[in-house]
């Protein structure tokens, strides 16, 4: 066992310091003003940020996003009119079209990146932030938040929006493209999702979880 003194010192270091996630350098945690961000002094990684009212704002954007996500899925995003026929596409029907075209794996990738992960991000974020706000954190909160953080890169709706623009240009001179009602909702959804990830400060949620853990010990 180490002496009580050295134990005390390292316990202090644990609370007042942070290790850079990219280079492992130990840095003391500064007090941050609103909208201030700290970077690692050695490798410039973003360490911590102080977002004003981050939990409330993120919750607002997540709820807005969820409503827009539902609207985006109710109506077609795009329709194509040619030789008297109309073809419609929505988020789910795009994945389904690939399944019908004998590409089940590709269909699964589209389903996960454009539907499942964005939906879990929105619902999961709302669930966790409500738990944090109402102090009803349970043993599943931390693993769920970890899951959301690690699947963050796999929701690819903003890339899908870029693909819609590319498809519009490609098809524009061949056939009549009709913008669906959902396309407007979808554009706003991308805006909400960007604002959500901008306003979310994961450290705020972790700090709440850490405080809760210390109280229970």
């Amino acid at each position, binding site marked *: 066992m180490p002496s009580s003194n050295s134990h005390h010192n390292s316990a202090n270091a*644990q609370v007042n310091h942070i290790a850079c996630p990219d280079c492992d350098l130990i840095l003391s945690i500064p007090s941050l003003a609103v909208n201030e961000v700290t970077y690692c002094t050695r490798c410039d990684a973003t360490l911590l940020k102080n977002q004003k009212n981050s939990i409330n704002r993120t919750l607002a954007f997540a709820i807005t996003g969820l409503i827009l996500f539902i609207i985006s899925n109710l109506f077609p995003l795009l329709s194509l009119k040619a030789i008297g026929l109309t073809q419609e596409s929505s988020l789910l029907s795009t994945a389904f079209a690939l399944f019908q075209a004998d590409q089940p794996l590709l269909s699964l990738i589209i389903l996960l990146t454009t539907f499942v992960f964005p939906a879990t991000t929105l619902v999961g974020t709302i669930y966790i932030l409500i738990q944090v706000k109402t102090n009803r954190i349970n043993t599943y909160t931390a693993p769920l938040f970890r899951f959301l953080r690690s699947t963050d890169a796999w929701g690819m709706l903003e890339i899908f929006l870029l693909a819609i623009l590319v498809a519009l240009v490609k098809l524009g001179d061949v056939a009549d493209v009709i913008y669906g009602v959902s396309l407007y909702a979808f554009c706003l959804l991308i805006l909400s999702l960007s604002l959500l990830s901008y306003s979310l400060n994961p450290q705020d949620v972790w700090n709440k979880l850490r405080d809760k853990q210390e109280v229970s010990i």
Partner: protein
Amino acid sequence: MTTARQMGLISCHFCHTLSKLPNDIDEKSAKKQTEIICPCCYSSLHSRIPNSLSRTWALLLAALILYIPANTLPIMTVTYWGEGQPDTILSGVMHLLAEGMWPLALLIFLASIFIPILKLLTLFGLLISIHFRANWRPKDRTVMYRITEFVGRWSMVDVFVIALLVALVQFGKTASVSPNLGALSFAAVVILTMFAAHTFDPRLIWDAMEDDSSGEISAK
């Protein structure tokens, strides 16, 4: 310049909570005995991502192999009045150029050809540099890693375009688009390189710096 590992601390990968390594047990033997659990978020703690190098190598090589069918096999076939025309990634870009849609050609070129090659080369270079314990510009290498991690997912745009065209252009014999195996191979390359970037631990770049002074072997 002290790292968490030199202080006997482990930073949680998710919540950045610092935990103490168990007394007098170095990480290698501790890993064999018991898992260390983060007190804040209950994740399993590791000073460095376990087997980061071998996992990244494996994923990178798999991506490299699939890169061949992704570029040689057609990604989709456009059938127009009964005549099918299969397109590979490169021929798709060429068609766009021929039709005068150069902004679109540039976009697809960047997303489908430039970024994947950049990503494969960067990860390859990073892995090699760690194997040789290079001291060369660790900051720049970390920045390269961050760029790779950030831009990689945008390569999926071509896969989504194919999916949209398949869903929209279904007019029987007049005009239809069907997906081909090249599209799946390409999606697999993007996904595998995303996983490769994720399992790569940038802290290994910086470990070579401390190894110089302490003579400790850590990258393996």
